[in-house]
């Protein structure tokens, strides 16, 4: 038996979840089926909304598939050159210290093109939040290897899987940044299932709260599905993320209140 889901129920009910975040201008986008980036974006926007910071928020967006999502976002945004978002955000935050400043970057943008930008920004303890959408591939180019691609991961230019002896080792950027003295909060979430999405939203909230308390650099990495770039069916994307990327880029909070978790 199928239920009519074309319109709200006639039976007495309350709406507990809207199609989109209150900070979305539209629901339409051209990203691939099964992409994790719109899911992560919604978690970010819901976090900004829940903290009541929408009017004070400025986002600095890098270059990647997610750049196409900027038409959805009802916040002030700046478009940065490839990899340079942390430096643009540094300038904006220093001129407007009362704002919530975040970057939105992919692994190709942050960890390949702009690795020094994010490391220096973190080490300086700039009071802003960098957000990394990490799927281990350059999604926009069609799935090429990035610096975060895990060993054994199949990409367009590592068809037999990433080989350490030939391609080198992945950079675990969250773990690296957590070790720097300038960082106050570092967490790595995932959008491969509903619990992971809910946790990721909490990480965004904690990072933004940390920034508003002036605790220095905060960082939220989100593992996102890229079934197109991984050459897997969309339905297998979450499992692939959890098994392949999630076993190396381990999720959880890495640094809270300026202290390494578990240290």
């Amino acid at each position, binding site marked *: *038996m*199928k*239920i009519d*889901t*074309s*319109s*709200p*129920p006639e*039976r*007495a*009910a*309350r*709406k*507990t*979840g*809207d*199609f*989109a975040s209150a900070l*979305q201008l539209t*629901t*339409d*986008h051209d*990203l*691939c*089926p*099964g*992409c*994790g*980036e*719109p*899911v992560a974006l*919604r978690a970010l926007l819901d976090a900004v909304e829940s903290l009541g910071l929408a009017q004070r928020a400025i986002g600095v967006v890098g270059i990647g598939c997610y750049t196409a999502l900027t038409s959805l976002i009802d916040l002030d945004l700046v478009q940065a050159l490839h990899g340079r978002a942390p430096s643009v955000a540094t300038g904006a935050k220093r001129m407007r210290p009362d704002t919530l400043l975040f970057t939105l970057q992919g692994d190709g943008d942050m960890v390949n093109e702009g690795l020094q930008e994010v490391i220096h920004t973190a080490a300086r303890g700039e009071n802003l939040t960098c957000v990394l959408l990490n799927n281990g591939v350059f999604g926009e180019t069609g799935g090429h290897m990035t610096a975060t691609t895990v060993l054994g991961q199949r990409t367009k230019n590592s068809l037999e899987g990433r080989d350490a002896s030939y391609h080198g080792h992945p950079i675990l950027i969250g773990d690296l940044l957590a070790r720097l003295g300038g960082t106050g909060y570092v967490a790595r979430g995932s*959008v491969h*299932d*509903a619990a992971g*999405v*809910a946790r990721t939203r909490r990480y965004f909230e904690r990072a933004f709260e940390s920034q508003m308390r002036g605790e220095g650099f905060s960082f939220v990495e989100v593992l996102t599905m890229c*079934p197109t770039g991984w050459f897997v069916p*969309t*339905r297998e*994307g*979450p499992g692939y993320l959890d098994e392949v990327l999630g076993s190396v880029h381990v999720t959880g909070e890495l640094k809270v209140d300026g202290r390494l978790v578990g240290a």
Partner: protein
Amino acid sequence: MTAPLSPAATVSRGTVVIAVDRCKGCELCVPACPPAVLSMSSQHNAIGFAYPELAPGCTGCGACLLVCPDFCFEVHRFEEPEPGPPPEDPACAP
């Protein structure tokens, strides 16, 4: 495909509105649904993709909404649970 539901599981505590024409058929909502009441259609929408269909038993938990990359779900919780349809008696089947 979804597991067969017990009669008790077909009580609906909520429901969803599905924006069928936006769906790109990724199927992420199907395994994400805890009571397993979403399954993919045999029909295709205006842009050529199969889309999720709802069977009785929704709890209104919102897991589908959380995982959907195309913002296709709106979630409603009923004030009072809706009893499920009576179980079909195999003896009465045509």
